[in-house]
């Protein structure tokens, strides 16, 4: 904890110093992240993602808060890493806020003038989401402690709505397409990647801590949410020609996949590990893929990398996207949610046309070097699972004992 606070202090300091020179902040943020690489496997991947985010922010370094933005990404990364480690509900809620707030600023960042309209829209939803999330968590815990089923369900559903609003799960996804289409692609790439982890991890930890026999029926509502989100995301993306919108609906669909993994929470321990591993892999696919694609939209990228990202999103083996869905489906089938598994597979099929179209639309004749490197890096990350990721399940089982 002390280490975290120290990192946070350094990053704040870096943010302040950046008014002198943005490079100071850049160096300090990267330094903190490199130090944090030692926390273990999954935090290392998070750090790597954050580094990619910071580097991609360099593409729009002419923005209004240049320098501070690096420090904020670093802040989010440290919070995310710590969310994996702690299981204290108060700390988790604090981390939720720490990850959420920097995005309020980041969403408004643009090269020209500040994107205030978009920012207000985003902040409105995020504030409501945060409030509902926190109230939900508190009620859930109270209901669990007092063994009051009404309060328990109420808390569970508030938490669910908070989560849905925060990450953009249908039918509470309305802000996502608007923000994705109107904000700067680079800042969206951060919202769509690094910011998605903590809400899920916190929600999952809270539900696991407060699990009772009531959870099983509550999870049914959650499964329905997940199915709706998959369908709305994939069908919504099916006919649009705007790449940012495609990615927005793709996010909605991916959040549905991740949420689906939650229904295995009440299953046996092995299955839970597979479910968490699947959810995290899917989050990584979503995060790296979004970084890659938004960079491709911004400055262009090589077609090969784009196709690798696209196939990974579709879920073609042996790319990471396949393993994420595979683990989730595995967990679903063996925790008696066959119907949800079938819906997931169907949705993967529905998603094929628009991902391919996305590659076609984002094709650039002369890609910018930095964005190309970033996209290619994310494509290489998708190839990590050439070694079947049982190692990832082991990492997960170490983190979530």
């Amino acid at each position: 904890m002390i280490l975290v606070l120290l990192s946070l202090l350094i990053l704040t300091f870096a943010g302040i110093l950046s008014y002198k020179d943005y490079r100071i902040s850049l160096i300090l943020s990267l330094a903190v992240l490199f130090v944090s690489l030692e926390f273990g496997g999954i935090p290392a991947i998070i750090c790597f993602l954050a580094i990619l985010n910071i580097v991609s922010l360099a593409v729009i370094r002419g923005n209004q808060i240049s320098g501070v933005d690096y420090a904020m990404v670093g802040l989010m990364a440290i919070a995310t890493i710590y969310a994996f480690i702690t299981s204290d509900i108060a700390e988790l809620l604090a981390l939720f806020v720490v990850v959420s707030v920097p995005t309020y600023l980041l969403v408004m960042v643009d090269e020209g003038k500040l994107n205030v309209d978009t920012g207000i829209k985003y902040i409105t939803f995020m504030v409501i989401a945060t409030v509902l999330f926190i109230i939900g968590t508190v009620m859930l815990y109270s209901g669990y402690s007092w063994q009051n089923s009404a309060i328990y369900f109420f808390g569970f559903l508030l938490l669910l709505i908070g989560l849905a609003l925060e990450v953009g799960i249908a039918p509470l996804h309305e802000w996502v397409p608007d923000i994705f289409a109107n904000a700067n692609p680079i800042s969206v790439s951060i919202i769509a990647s690094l910011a998605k982890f903590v809400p899920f991890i916190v929600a999952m930890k809270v539900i696991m801590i407060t699990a009772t026999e009531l959870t099983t029926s509550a999870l049914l509502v959650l499964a329905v949410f997940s199915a709706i989100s998959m369908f709305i995301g994939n069908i919504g993306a099916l006919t649009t020609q705007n790449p940012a919108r495609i990615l927005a609906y793709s996010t909605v669909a991916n959040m549905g996949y991740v949420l689906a993994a939650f229904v295995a929470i009440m299953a046996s321990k092995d299955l839970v590990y597979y479910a968490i591993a699947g959810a995290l892999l899917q989050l990584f696919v979503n995060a790296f893929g979004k970084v890659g694609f938004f960079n491709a939209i911004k400055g262009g990228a090589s077609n090969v990398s784009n196709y690798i990202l696209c196939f990974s999103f579709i879920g073609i083996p042996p790319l990471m996207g396949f393993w994420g869905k595979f683990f989730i489906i595995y967990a679903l089938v063996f925790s008696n949610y066959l119907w949800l598994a079938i819906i997931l597979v169907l949705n993967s099929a529905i998603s094929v046309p628009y991902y391919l179209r996305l590659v076609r639309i984002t094709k650039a004749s002369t890609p910018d070097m930095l964005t190309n490197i970033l996209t290619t890096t994310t494509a290489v990350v998708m190839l990590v699972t050439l070694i079947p990721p049982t190692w990832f399940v082991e990492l997960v089982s170490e983190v979530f004992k």
Partner: protein
Amino acid sequence: MIELLLLAIFISPVIGSLPVAFAWLLDPKRSWARKLPIFAVLGLFISLLCTLYILFNFGELDERVYRQVKFEWLPGFNISFTFIFDYLSRIMGVLTALIAFLIGVYGLEYMKHDYRLGWYWFFFNLFTASMLLVVYSDNLLLLLIGWEGLGLASWALIGHWFRDDDEMSFVGVVGRKIGKLNYFWSPSFGAWRAISTIRLGDMPMFFAIAVIFFLAGNLNISEINWGELSEKVGSVGIFLILFAFLLGPFTKSAQLPFSEWLMTAMTGPTTVSALLHSATMVAAGTYVFMRLSWYMEPWNIHSAGIEAIYVLVLFLGLISALYGASVALGCLERKVLLAASTMSSLGLMFATASASLWVGKFAIIVAFWYLVTHAFAKATLFLVAGHLIHETHNRFCVGGKELAKHLKLAFIATILATLCLSGIPPLTAYWVKSAMDGVMHHLEHEFGLIPLALLVLTSAIYSAFLAKFLSLNFLKGEYHVKAHGGGRLMSLGYTAMVSLLPLILLLYLYHPDFHEFVAEGFLNSSLAVGGIVLFTYLIALYKPSLESPVGRALGDRLYLAFLNDYIIPALGWTLAKLVDYSNRAIDFFCHRAIPSAFGLLSIGIRRIQSGSVELYLRLSAAVLVALVAIAVALGVIG
């Protein structure tokens, strides 16, 4: 030894036909290629010698004795190449080989100038070999190989003149139409009708054999425990199995309503018709039924299912017999008349063999000997018909006394064959028919006198059209074309064939095995039937043709062709249309409806994105309220 013998029986006809087949493939114009069929006939002759050896050297010819020869085939499945040499197969084998050989000799001359000798001889000999395989095999799977060989060869031979360019090879009056339907048939169409009808029966038969194998674990007819099998599957089960199995024999032996193909099978060369109608193909159906009954011994099994099947076969046979005889009575084409008469005889064989359920093995023996008698007589008549067609260049029954003078041997052979086949006392078929009368008389307790009455009626009509055939072709035909000479080898063929009928007569009269036939023949009732038959024969001889609408309808085979050529195709087309429509529906759903539904849905989902925060918040609030309601509900239940 026995292996070589069997190999010689089945292989030598095929090998013998290979020289001409290959020569024809290479260069059909050479005159030396036209001499090669002699090897094919030689192959048939070797087969004949082997069957004769089997007939005389495999111990006493007794109803109870049989000898089985097994060669390993699929030991894991208890299926082997099993051949059986018993009363039925030893005689039937000789009959098949002998008739095939004699027709082969006849064919040397008849087919001399044909344009497809390689095709003809290869399939002719394959036809014979397949039939011999059916005759000798005990294993149903092995039998099925021969059975399918018969089907293939019959298709190839009926459609031999595949160019459809010779009016002489058609059936029906060319150009005639009834309604929308062309009431005449070309060789290629005839071949198609044959193979399509036969396949219709073969498929259920194949499945029935599979079921029998599954249930009994054995496919050797003589070893299957039918009593146990019928107990295992119950009455309905055994009925269905036997019915499916017998659909094969029914279609092959052209019982109602599968008779049409047999009539248009006359589009093939006459030699083919002769072989097809006497010892192979159509006989295969009845033969398999006899063999089945022989070892099933239905008289020892008490099963309502088996009884129902035998009643069905009895009446199907009798009605087919009556239908065939009536059609033959109205028919004016030489070969089609004979074809209808064959159908009639096959019906009688089926009916008599099925009576074994009540009468015992004797009924099967009667049916079998009727098959033998009929085979020689019918082969003779076909060969004569072929000679007449050659001489007069006319498919219809025409010719007068001059033709009789010119073709004396043919005339005599026809007289002898018709007399011997119609059942006029004391000639060959009379004794068998008398025994048949006796068998039908036995059924009085079960069905009253109906079977006997149907038999007598059929016999009377049968004898009438045979006399009509004789009279119209040699005595009172409307006109005749100047015949040209030749045909020595052809004459030899049918003379040899018909000379066997007196031999069989002697066999009936003097061999102790047939004393029951003779005893039946001396009964008053049998003599009375003989008298009726003689009477109709004489009438028809005196007045062979009578113009009447009934006769014309009979000559048109009571318009059964509509079933084959109109109703069933119409059903088929309806089915095809249905499939077409459902295809289109699927196409519509997959290519239009579903994509556009998804397109609309997709646009609908995006339509919410008006950019108005107020709307979004309202939506979120609505979801929140809905979920609170759910939470309350769950809480109450919880």
